């Protein structure tokens, strides 16, 4: 089930510095998240150290949005990849072209976007991220669609 993003898991933050993929059987609680243009509801996320959370994410906006649990550095790296997705027509403002996503890049990787710490959704779609917050580090939930993170579509994760 784990994804193989175009830069591998290290870049996308599939697991590592930001925690690890959570198991369905170990979910402590569920948080419902709405994605709007360009912000999350709720805007703040408070997590207990070590908790496994099931995020049920609904895109209520008019644009494609991402829900991504990562460190700031991981977000920065991912933003470059997302920019490439836009430039190659994989990502349109309100559409994800899944066929183009599977095309091989010059570096031999695809732009497939299915890492366990994130979900990328078209308007009206719902997805899920199960994440274990096993590392008490500075984490942000952010949208790396070009411009959205900088516009303020990013929320700090605070540990209780």
């Amino acid at each position, binding site marked *: 089930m784990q994804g193989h993003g175009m830069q591998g898991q290290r870049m996308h933050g599939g697991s590592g510095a930001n925690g690890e993929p959570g198991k369905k059987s170990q979910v402590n609680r569920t948080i419902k998240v709405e994605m*709007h*243009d360009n*912000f999350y509801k709720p805007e703040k996320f408070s997590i207990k150290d070590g908790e496994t959370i099931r995020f049920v994410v609904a895109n209520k906006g008019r*644009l494609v949005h991402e829900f991504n649990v990562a460190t700031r550095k991981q977000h920065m790296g991912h933003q470059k990849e997302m920019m490439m997705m836009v430039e*190659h*027509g994989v990502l349109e*403002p309100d559409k994800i072209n899944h066929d183009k996503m599977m095309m091989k890049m010059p570096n031999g990787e695809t732009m497939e976007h299915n890492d366990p710490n994130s979900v990328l959704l078209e308007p009206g779609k719902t997805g899920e991220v199960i994440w274990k917050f096993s590392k008490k580090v500075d984490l942000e939930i952010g949208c790396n669609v070009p*411009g959205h993170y*900088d516009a*303020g579509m990013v929320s700090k994760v605070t540990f209780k």
Partner: protein
Amino acid sequence: MISTIKAMSWRMVVAAAAILMVPFAALAGTYNITVDPVVIDTGDFKKDGIGYNGASPGPVLRFKEGEEVTINVKNNLDVSTSIHWHGLILPFQMDGVPTISFDGIKPGETFTYKFPIIQSGTYWYHSHSGFQEPDGAFGAIIIDSKDREPFRYDREYVVQLTDKHPHSGARIMRNLKMSADYYNRVQRTAKDFFADVSKMGLGDTLSDRGDWGQMRMMPTDIEDLQGFTPLINGKGPKQNWTGLFKKGERIRLRFINSSAMTYFDIRIPGMKMLVVNADGNNVQPVKVDEFRIAVAETYDVIVRPDEDKAYTIFAASMGRTAYARGTLAPRIGMSAAIPKLTKSPRLTMADMGMAHEGMDHGSMAGMDHSKMKGMDQSKMKGMDQSKMKGMDHSGHNMPKKPAFYAPGSGLIPKAKNGGKFLSYGDLRAQRPLYKHRKPTREIELRLTGNMERYIWSVNGIKYGDAEPIRLKYGERVRFKFVNETMMTHPMHLHGMWSILDVGAKKWNPVKHVVSVSPGTTVHMETEVDAPGQWAFHCHLSFHAAAGMFRKVIVEGGPKAAMLAR
């Protein structure tokens, strides 16, 4: 009838509803403005001018989307005046253009504007009478959205630019009519001539000079009005307008170019700018290092200073003859280094329209084509192709993107730090105002002029001699601008939105000014949803006055949307 109703935009419906609901409107504000003679101090010189409520720029008007505004404008001048609410969608009688919307406001009289606010964003207001706007009669408008903005910010500033000239507007026009290069200080010199001879040889140099002479233009004709002091919010570079911030804050800067004639390239060394709004409408956020603002455009950017230091807002005129400068700082009195102006760009043969595809060269009046044969056409072609390939790399699987500069143009901007320079092609509506549909027809508008006589025109005909453009309510018109001059023209249609074709279909940005570079063809589409009559013109004050201006008449439409005459 049914199709007409279907074609009505939601904004039109809102407008009609808002007017019907006036007696019940909860939100209403009254504003009083006086039009006054003022003295403008640029730090370089002082001059008499015109302002509002005793100052130029006038007060920032802050409205709320959904508000019904009443604005009393009292004329304290000894000549007639007017106020046009630039970019606002309103009944045509409230649009403030003398002879088109109303009779103007006579000396001593008060005119009451009353209209519903059905939009949000950054706009401005200015006189539409004579040369009062270049003389200082302008101010900013902020309209707060009823919905949450798609971006966050902690504080905001208006950054309103102008090109204040020591001469009055009327005197500038007289001088330009006498000699079109009266204010062109960066003319090519004898020194340039000898430098070119040593580089190109005598024959080519003479032939090059001949080509430009036949065009009645010079490669330095980027700004036909030079010798001004650019101001930010009324302050010259020495007076240093300053906006305060706390480190880490997001600051929304609302840039408005209220210049008579000058485009600016804007950067804030040390900071990226997130462009979130263009001409009042939100755009999908795009991060840039620098952007160009045409006359009468607005751009909102968000910056986030992460250091406890001063930053310079640097706005270099497109022809690099002058700059505006302001400061963002944590404390008053701080300043940062002021960059040096880079070399003035030069127009190229591409800006003459030589690289222009589909252009009717036969219609270019005043041009001697036999003289142009001397030009190295093969070189031009080579240039085109390499440029095109360089530009096309990202669009191999997308429809052809419109070009907003002629390939090889001397005006193509580059970010000083080598980073990203905003292009029209980057703009995408955050929330399209209209359903995308096929235009019902196309109207070609050739932007034309005779530089020698300082006549500017549309389709070769100046305003005084032209028939109005007639549009039908409910249609979607595609305007095709073909710039046959060597100057850049910011075209402004009143009363209705200009949907700029950047090749993004329903995401095309919705603007009120569309800048058309020399040697290019640019398309915009307009949903004709505002009955009445409107102005449509180049927003360079002296080009508009010289004839690059049209009256637009919208025929038909619901009576409900019109105010009683």
